[in-house]
C-alpha cells in the first residue's frame, strides 16, 4: 500500500496551464521529494494528489484504485501543512483525535491511538495544552501526530520546515527521516530547499514551470544532471556554467563544473578574486575569470586569497559536465 501513479495529470487555472502534463510513479515506501523554484507547481501537484484541487485531466491512482474523483477524505492520505493548520480551539489531544473522530472510531480506540502517537513524538506532556501554548517545533509534531494516527497510505508534507528557525530545521529534518525509517510509509515531501531534498529523499523530482525536469536519486541528480536547469539547481553553491570558446574547446555548447570540483593553486584558468567567504571548514571564493565569467570556487579548510589577488585554478576534468545548445547533457 502507498503506491501512487500519476498519468498525464494536467492542471490549469483558467487560461493558465500550471501543470501541462505529468507522468510519475511513486513506489510504496519511498520518500519522494518534489523540489523546484517558487511557482514551479510542486505544491499544486501535492494538492492534486491530496484531492484539495481537482485535476483538469489525467488520472491519479492510489494502490491501483482510481482516486481522481475521490474527495480528500476518502483517499486515505494525510497531509502536514506549512502552517501546521492545527485547530486552535482544541487541545492537542483533541487535535490528534480529530481524524479518528471523523472516521467514527469508538472513543476508547481513539484514546489508545492518540497516546501511541503522542509517545512516538514526545508529546505526552502536552496533550492537554492548546496550540497557542506550544512552540513551533511542538506544533510541528502535533501536526505530524494528527497525520500518523490515520495510518494513511502516504504522508504528504507541504514545506513543513519553512516556518522554523535554522537550528530547529536541522533537528526536525532528521526526526522526519527517522520517522520514515520506522514507519516505512510512503512520504511525499515538497520543498524549495535543495539541501532538504538531498538529505531526506530516496527519490527527487525536480520541477520547473509545471514540468518534470528529472527524476532520480539524490546522487544521480548530483552526478548526472540531465540538463543545465537540474545541474544548476542541485548542489550548493551552484554549479559554474561556462559558455563560449572554453566550452567549445571541450566539445560542448556549455560546460559545467561544481565549485567543489575545482582545484585551486594550479591549472589552466586564472582570475581576480572579487570576494572570499571564510567558514573555517571551507572557503568560498568568487572570482572574475575574464572570458569564463564569474566563477565560484570552493577550497577545503582555510585558503588565503584576498580581494584583488590573482589566482590560478583548474577543473577536475572527469567531473566536467557537457551540455548542448538546448541545455541537455551530452
Amino acid at each position: 500500500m502507498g503506491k501512487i501513479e500519476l498519468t498525464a495529470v494536467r492542471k490549469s487555472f483558467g487560461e493558465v496551464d500550471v501543470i501541462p502534463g505529468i507522468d510519475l510513479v511513486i513506489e510504496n515506501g519511498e520518500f519522494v521529494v518534489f523540489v523546484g523554484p517558487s511557482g514551479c507547481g510542486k505544491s499544486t501537484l501535492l494538492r492534486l494528489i491530496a484531492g484539495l484541487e481537482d485535476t483538469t485531466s489525467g488520472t491519479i491512482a492510489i494502490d491501483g484504485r482510481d482516486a481522481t474523483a475521490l474527495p480528500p477524505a476518502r483517499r486515505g492520505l494525510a497531509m502536514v501543512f506549512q502552517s501546521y493548520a492545527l485547530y486552535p480551539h482544541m487541545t492537542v489531544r483533541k487535535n490528534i483525535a480529530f481524524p479518528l473522530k471523523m472516521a467514527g472510531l469508538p472513543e476508547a480506540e481513539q484514546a489508545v491511538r492518540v497516546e501511541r502517537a503522542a509517545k512516538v513524538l514526545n508529546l505526552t506532556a502536552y496533550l492537554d495544552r492548546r496550540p497557542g501554548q506550544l512552540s513551533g517545533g511542538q506544533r510541528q509534531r502535533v501536526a505530524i501526530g494528527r497525520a500518523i494516527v490515520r495510518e494513511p497510505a502516504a504522508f504528504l508534507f507541504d514545506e513543513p520546515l519553512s516556518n522554523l528557525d535554522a537550528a530547529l530545521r536541522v533537528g526536525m529534518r532528521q526526526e522526519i527521516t527517522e520517522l520514515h525509517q520506522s514507519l516505512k510509509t510512503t512520504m511525499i515531501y515538497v520543498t524549495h530547499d535543495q539541501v532538504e531534498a538531498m538529505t531526506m529523499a530516496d527519490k527527487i523530482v525536480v520541477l520547473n514551470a509545471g514540468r518534470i525536469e528529472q527524476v532520480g536519486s539524490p546522487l544521480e541528480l548530483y552526478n548526472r544532471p540531465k540538463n543545465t536547469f537540474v545541474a544548476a539547481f542541485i548542489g550548493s553553491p551552484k554549479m559554474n556554467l561556462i559558455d563560449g570558446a572554453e566550452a567549445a574547446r571541450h566539445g560542448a555548447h556549455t560546460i559545467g563544473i561544481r565549485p567543489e570540483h575545482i582545484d585551486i593553486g594550479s591549472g589552466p584558468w586564472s582570475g581576480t578574486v572579487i570576494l572570499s567567504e571564510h567558514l573555517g571548514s571551507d572557503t568560498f571564493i568568487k572570482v572574475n575569470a575574464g572570458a569564463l565569467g564569474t566563477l565560484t570556487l570552493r577550497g577545503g579548510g582555510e585558503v588565503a586569497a584576498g580581494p584583488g589577488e590573482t589566482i590560478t585554478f583548474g577543473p577536475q576534468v572527469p567531473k566536467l559536465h557537457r551540455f548542448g545548445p538546448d541545455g541537455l547533457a551530452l
Partner: protein
Amino acid sequence: MARALAPRRKLIITLAAWSVALVIFFPVLWMLLTSFKTEASAVASPPQLFTADWTFENYTEVWARSDYPRFFWNSVVIAVGSTLLGLAIAIPAAWAMAFVPGPRTKDLLMWMLSTKMMPAVAVMIPLYLLFQQMGLIDTRTGLVIALMLMNLPIIIWMLYTYFKEIPAEILEAARMDGAGMWSEIAYVLTPMALPGIASTMLLNIILAWNEAFWTIVLTTTNAAPLSAFIASFSAPQGLFYAKLSAASAMAIMPILILGWFSQKQLVRGLTFGAVK
C-alpha cells in the same frame, strides 16, 4: 498618536474634551434625569437639573400600562428573531462565498450590498400589498421577515469578512482529516468563527431594535415595537414629559448598553470593512 502633553496643555485639552462629550451626551442625560422627576417638576420653570423629589413612579406607571410591556416584548422578539433568522440564512451563504469563491463571488457580494442602498420607499407599496395579502400586516412574524431581509446584506457581509480571516489551511486540514462539509462547519468553522458571529449578532440586534421605517409602515397596534410606539405617540395621550422620558429611557437602555460593547463591530459592519 498618544504623546505626553505639558501639564497645562493637558488640562485645557482634558477640559475641552470633557465639555464636548458632556454637551453631546446632555440630551440623553437630561432625558434620564427627567424620567425620575414628578410631572410637575419636569415642566418647572425655570428648569432644574436635579429635584428634591426623586421618584420611580414614572417607570412603574409606564410599565403598568397595558400596552407598553407588549411593545417592549415586540421589540425583543423582532430584534432577536430577525437576527437569528438572518444568521441561519447568512452563515451558509457567507461560508460558501468565503471558502468556495467563484469568478462572480465579488460581484454577487456587491450586488447584495447594493440592495441595501435601494430606497425603501421604492419597494414599500408592493411589499405592503404583498404582506397584506399574506396576512402579515401588524404581525411579529411579518416584521421579523421584513427586518431580516433588510439587514441580510449586512449580516452576510460581516460574516464573510470574519470567515475570510480563518486560515483556509485549517479547513483543508479538516477535509484531509475526513470531515465532510457539515462536520467541517460544526466542529471547526463555527467554533473559530464564534466571536465573529457574536459580533454580527450584536450589531444586527442593535440595527433591528432601532429600525424606524418598516416597523412603522407595517404595523398598527398589535405588533408595534417600541420604535413605532414612541414615533406614533410622541406627543402622546397620557404620557407627559416625565413618563415620556421614562418610556424613552426604557426603550433605549438595552441598546445603549449593548452599544458600549459593540463599537468595533459597528465600524466593521457599517463601513463594510473599508476602515480598520
